[in-house]
């Protein structure tokens, strides 16, 4: 199944509600205040957020006036373009170059799907015949290590694990050292879910990041923040604070197979210029896809093309 069809399947429900409203909206030929207000509600309803929504609508208004647009279909094209201006138009691949193993740090608040995402990423790398090592850096949550163990088996990767309560930095350091000496290509580091307003847990994360830098020059090659598409405006705060603790290189947007739209990634891209790199569209090991902005936006507006 290709990206588009999966995304389409995933966004089916989203689209049916969103599009029903959009279709109603865009058959009009005149654009009055009620039109813009309704447009605002649609974007806010997609969790794009007040600020980014107002910005988008503001720009759309200007364009409509400037280009004297009268046609509803043309309006949606303009809106898509405006969103793509923010999201970027290209798929952003993982940057894994370097001499030793590529180290990927996976972060996020509780329950967003970090461990599952690691399992899926491992599978992707295994499919490219890479040797993959998983580091069980979530030493806090009950049975997190066991959960990762199962993903290691499913994906055909190896696992480095200490006992519960161990120092996560130590686990990850061990994993990287082992990966270097045993010639692994990729190290995927799991971390405990942490709310970004817990100062001590964020300090722990900084330490983990520092240890990774020391363990291998050039590492971490990727620092991915996992965001739950169901999350609202708080995701922006998450991105901001995690970015300060450990500079992020990309986002993974999970649970996009529900009805949530994950529109907050548009706000994050606009404010922090952090690209979405992957999207999670199910619980299966293959349900992780590279994020393609054009197709994502296309998927959102598919009924109009």
């Amino acid at each position, binding site marked *: 199944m290709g990206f588009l069809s999966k995304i389409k399947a995933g966004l089916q*429900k989203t689209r049916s*509600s969103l599009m029903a409203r959009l279709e109603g909206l865009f058959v009009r030929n005149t654009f009055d205040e009620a039109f813009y207000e309704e447009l605002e*509600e649609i974007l*806010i*309803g*997609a*969790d794009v*957020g*007040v600020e980014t929504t107002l910005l988008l609508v503001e720009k759309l208004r200007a364009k409509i006036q400037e280009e004297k647009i009268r046609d509803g279909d043309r309006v949606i094209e303009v809106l898509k373009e405006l969103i793509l201006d923010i999201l970027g138009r290209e798929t952003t691949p993982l940057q894994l170059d370097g001499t030793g193993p590529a180290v990927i740090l996976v972060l996020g*608040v*509780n*329950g*967003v*799907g970090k461990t599952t995402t690691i399992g899926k990423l491992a599978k992707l790398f295994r499919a490219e015949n890479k040797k993959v090592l998983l580091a069980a850096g979530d030493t*806090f*949550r*009950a*049975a*997190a290590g*066991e*959960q990762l*163990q*199962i*993903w290691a088996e499913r994906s055909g990767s190896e696992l480095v694990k200490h006992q*519960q309560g161990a120092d996560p930095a130590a686990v990850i350091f061990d994993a990287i050292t082992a990966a270097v000496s045993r010639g692994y290509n990729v190290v995927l580091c799991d971390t405990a879910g942490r*709310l*970004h*307003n*817990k*100062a*001590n847990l964020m300090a722990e994360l900084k330490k983990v990041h520092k240890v990774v830098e020391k363990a291998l020059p050039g590492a971490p090659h990727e620092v991915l923040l996992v965001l*739950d598409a*169901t*999350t*609202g*405006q*708080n*995701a*922006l*705060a998450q991105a*901001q604070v995690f970015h300060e603790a450990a500079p992020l290189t990309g986002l993974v947007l999970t*649970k996009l*197979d*529900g*009805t*949530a*739209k994950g529109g*907050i990634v548009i706000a994050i891209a606009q404010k922090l210029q952090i690209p979405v790199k992957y999207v999670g569209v199910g*619980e299966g090991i293959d349900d992780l896809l590279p994020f393609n902005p054009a197709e994502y936006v296309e998927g959102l507006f598919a009924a109009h093309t």
Partner: protein
Amino acid sequence: MLFENLSAKLQDTFKRLRGKGKLSEKDVDAALREVRLALLEADVNYKVVKDFIAAVKERSLGSDVMASLTPGQTVIKIVHEELTRLMGEQAAKLTKAKSPPTIVMLVGLQGSGKTTSAAKLASLLKKGGGNPLLVAADIYRPAAIKQLQVLGEQVAVPVFQLGGQDPVQIARAALEYARKHSHDYLLVDTAGRLHVDAELMEELARMQAALQPQEILLVVDAMTGQDAVTVAKAFQEKLMLSGIILTKLDGDTRGGAALSVRAVTGCPVKFAGLGEKTDAFEPFYPDRMASRILGMGDVLTLIEKAQAAIDEDKAREMERKLRRQQFTLEDFLEQMQQLRKMGPLSQLVEMLPGVGGLGKKLKGLQVDEKEFKRAEAIILSMTKKERLNPSIINSSRRKRIAAGSGTRIQDVNNLLKQFEMMQKMLKQFSKLEKGKSRSRGHGRFPFM
């Protein structure tokens, strides 16, 4: 702007209103626009916001506001009342079965916190003298059963599991087991599922039919966005939801999902999850949540916590000392120990009124438990004489204290400096108290 919460926003809006003598319809509209934006930024669903604003506006334009001498306060009062009404007015309790066990199912999306909540609820019931049984019915997520077992062990509540068997079978067997072993509560942890997954939603319906539970609690992540409404509706269509558990409220989310879910399901929020530890779980007080949203702080909870932890006589004695400026390191130690009994400091701070606006300043003030312990160790390494009169602590004493507490001299110096600053602040406070005027302080309630 990011860390300003809804309380702060509404406070800002109403500060402007408070300065006004009389309100025009335009004033009300301007204020309500701010309320609308704040609620939207707080992730309250836009439809819920619309209804809410309409209700407030209708009442605000009624005679009571226009005629009121303090229209600003009247509008705030209306917003607060409507918010409270929307949240429900009382803490809702669990419905008990006529003959035990009382059966509780926990359902929700993946990652909302069902397993953790199940263990926390079990712990709460156990502390109340109950004999709950946890049931591991999440057969899909890797290591979910193991997770519940570990948590069950932590709270000393047995966990019933049949491995990867059909969840409906597990539920039936667990019920039989609970009856045989006279458990009074059966808490069923179900697998996380998307509300659009027809097959898994059907599974829940079958479990409901098999168990006939008294309670089906939808576990909702407080950070959920606009979709909370869709999710809650879908679960309610399939199941007889009886209540909500709101999790991760210890985050800095504005938590508008609570309003949304409550509004669309009509189900009360019964419990709130406030942290990863198994005792970070409380009954949900809707009126307090409404107050918190409005910037009154969760004063009631704070007072209750304080009462539970602090000996009243000691508190009075402390107050006397504070006023007379006889506050010593000995008292400082005692106070710190009592504060720690009340829970993590960061949580206490959030419950204080007016903190919305102070959020940024307080960010730097976040004290972790380790620092607390260090300070405690330092004071404990002092002699009684030193504690009562810190000015005698010279450098050789400092060296000894540092060695005794396993800290550095710097740490001892820091603590002494902090204490000195605190004393100075107390002096200023008591001066202020004496010359107390009607000036508006940061921490004052907007209603007063």
